[in-house]
């Protein structure tokens, strides 16, 4: 994995709102095919970090490099053009379109057809849209109105939309929030599989530690805007500071893991 190129490098990224320092001097790197989790308590600055990475929020200082290009201060749509897909903590889709049309919109933007006034969108890149939906196991829902979907399905649709520009980096803000336990595991397995196959780097935030420790190659721990730990799942789990601040002591998870290790 060390031979893979660096996709994303973040240097001393900071954001303050008035006197409040939401994010302070965060630095890290992410390589292709790597799955990196960003965890921390509520208000740690995870979402702010995410919003700065794809240009939703302007950083106060620091530098973001995507694929060797400096993208600090670029707009979300420009970051997207460089090959970054994003899913949101609260899903953002197009509720008045069908599931397939949702993906088609992303596809026609990717192919720079936005100002095409003649073609018929319902027939635009139907096959590719179908493939993307199959990829996230939503093939059977293609003609359904997006507004009717259950929340877990919306999350998968969002993933399909995020994959439409053949991204090299996926930013997923709490990808499994609001989903049933089985759906969570399925969605993350799916994401991990796609990431490995296509050598996509994934950065995600998550509160479900089962999901984090099972799928992340590496974990960053954020607290009050500062990076307090970084390392493999094992290293992070053992870190006393992380336990004190976030994971807590004597977790059920811990017990289960010990059982698993001894078994």
């Amino acid at each position, binding site marked *: 994995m060390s031979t893979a190129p660096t996709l994303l490098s973040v240097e001393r990224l900071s954001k303050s709102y008035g006197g409040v320092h939401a994010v302070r001097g965060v630095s890290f790197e992410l390589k292709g095919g790597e799955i990196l989790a960003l965890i921390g308590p509520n208000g740690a600055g995870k979402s702010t970090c995410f919003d700065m990475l794809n240009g939703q929020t302007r950083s106060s200082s620091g530098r973001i490099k995507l694929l060797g290009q400096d993208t600090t201060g670029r707009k979300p749509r420009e970051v997207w053009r460089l090959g970054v897909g994003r899913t949101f903590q609260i899903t953002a*889709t197009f509720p*008045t379109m*069908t599931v397939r049309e949702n993906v088609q*919109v992303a596809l026609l933007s990717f192919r720079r057809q*936005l100002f*095409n*006034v003649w073609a018929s*969108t319902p027939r635009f890149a139907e096959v590719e849209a179908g493939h993307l939906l199959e990829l996230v196991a939503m093939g059977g829902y293609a003609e359904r*109105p997006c507004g009717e979907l259950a929340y877990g399905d919306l999350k998968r649709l969002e993933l399909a*939309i995020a994959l439409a520009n053949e991204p090299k980096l996926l930013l997923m803000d709490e990808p499994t929030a609001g989903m049933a336990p089985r759906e969570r595991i399925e969605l993350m397995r799916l994401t991990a599989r796609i990431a490995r196959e296509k050598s996509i780097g994934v950065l995600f935030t998550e509160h479900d530690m089962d999901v984090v420790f099972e799928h992340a190659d590496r974990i960053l721990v954020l607290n009050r805007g500062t990076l307090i730990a970084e390392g493999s799942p094992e290293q992070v789990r053992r870190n006393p500071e992380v336990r004190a601040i976030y994971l807590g002591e004597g977790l059920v998870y811990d017990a289960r893991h010990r059982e698993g290790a001894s078994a």
Partner: protein
Amino acid sequence: MAFYVVQFLTGLASAASLFLVASGLSIIFGVTRIVNFAHGAFYMLGAYAAYTLTERLSGAFGFWAGILGAALIVAAVGVLVEMILLRRIYHVPELFQLLATFGLTLMVEDLVVLIWGPSDLLGRRAPGFKGAVDFFGQNIPTYDLFLIVLGPIVLAALWLMFQRTRWGVLVRAATQDRDMVAALGVNQKWLFTSVFALGVFLAAFGGALQIPRDAVNHAMDLRIIVDVFVVVVIGGLGSIVGAFVAAVLVSELNAFGILIFPKISIILVFLVMAVVLIVRPWGLFGKPEAAARRTPGLTLNPWRPLTTQERMLALAGLILALAVPLVAGNYALTVGSEIAIFVIFAASLHFLMSVGGLASFGHAAYFGLGAYGVAFLAKLAGLPMLLCLLLGPLLGVLGAAVFGFFAVQLSGVYFAMLTLAFAQIVWSVAFQWVELTGGDNGILGVWPEKWAASPSHFYCLSIGIAALAVAALRVLVFSPFGFALRANRDSPLRSEAVGIDGKRIQWTAFVIAGGIAGVAGALFAYLKGSVFPDSLGISLSVDALVMVLLGGVDTVSGAVVGAIIYKALSIWLVSQTDLSKLVLGGVIILIVVAFPKGVVGVLETIRNRRRSHSKDSSLLRSQIESAE
């Protein structure tokens, strides 16, 4: 110097009434989220009621009792309106509320003429404030001084009421989050009613106070409502202090604008408003609006292109329309041409509203620009008709490109207000630049050439262009551009995250809609043989809005049906009754209450229900069969 001071004081005195009306509108909007178009009507009712009461009641006490009594009576009317009408429509989209209150305004305009007659009424002078004060040789009416003092007193009283009383705390809480207030067990119904009553009281009080200064007439509602919109937008919707500051600002701009730039005095206010909205889109004292909670289940059925069968049906309809000249007379054909022109106009606004989510309240600007474009080319440049029809709308395109660039930076109510302001700017240019436009006298003698001159030929031309325009807009809706526009309407966050430059898409849509409205205007100029500033006016903009909402804003081509029904109905009503506004207003309100999805929307719902019903039963049948 003394002259300027007096001018300043006159401005301050005018600000008092404006502030009263604007603060009422602002308070109502803050809590109920209804932009009350009828606020001007309540202002007018207040003035008329005060006129009657002060004529009946004698003496100084009678006068002041009459003023207050008028405001209280109108407030009671407001309570009735709230309980009977508004309670039914709090849950519908804000545009429909605006439409319903517009219908109310139409009704009040006719009722006022019915009760008080059409001529201007001169009210009594205020007892005790009949004279004037001498100020270095300039006269200041003492009544003006009274108003100057009254404004801040009302502001202070309102401020105390909102800060110090339990009711005021509830109102402020509801302004921030009415769902939360309801969840806390507050009886929302009466809170809304009382807030509406207060707002209407302020409007009527403002109107009543005007009678010693101005004649009472049945057009004062529209005049004040435009000023009030400007005031609340500059001050910030929902802010009372903002309403006060903006009322003073607007009144002073009016007072001094006439001195400094007599030519563009009307424009000045709107220019200031446009600048404020661009620099601070939520007004000087307003707060950025939280994203509206989407009403779920409203637009669940995705649009789809017409099926072959439906296309055949549309084609048959077109052929039928083209066959009308075989049976109809000249008058009917002229009416038919007018309807066709308004189909084009309404369809262009519908595209902007339903696909783009941009409800323009000044779409007539581009209609009128197209008409003036034709008039200039035909009269000044002497170009042939076909060339005029092609090039005239370019003036609409140009206007839409300039104004649209600024307008799409905003959204929602503020977008509506800014487009209204731009339309008023264009209107006042046409009105005041007499050398070029002939001002109120318009440009006459824009007649079609021989080949299109007969009513039947012109009718066929109009129908043909209307069919082309509607078909082109449909293609656009289902094109990638249409989807990009809809994507941005559905979720600006998601569309930006998939690389869509929403503002540029919206701007382009605005220009396209402006151009098509310009085509309608160009035809209109030839139909009427003349162009007047009216073709840029607010009432035409509102007509278009009504057509769109009547047809159904969530449909692809509802505006076509809406335009036909509305235009035919209004032309027929004008020929049948003197009280056409009363009937039309009633019909509009009925539609909003009974069919908020519009005519086409209702038809689609029925069809979808039937379709899903038959699907269900066939599914059931197949299940039963397989079970057997």
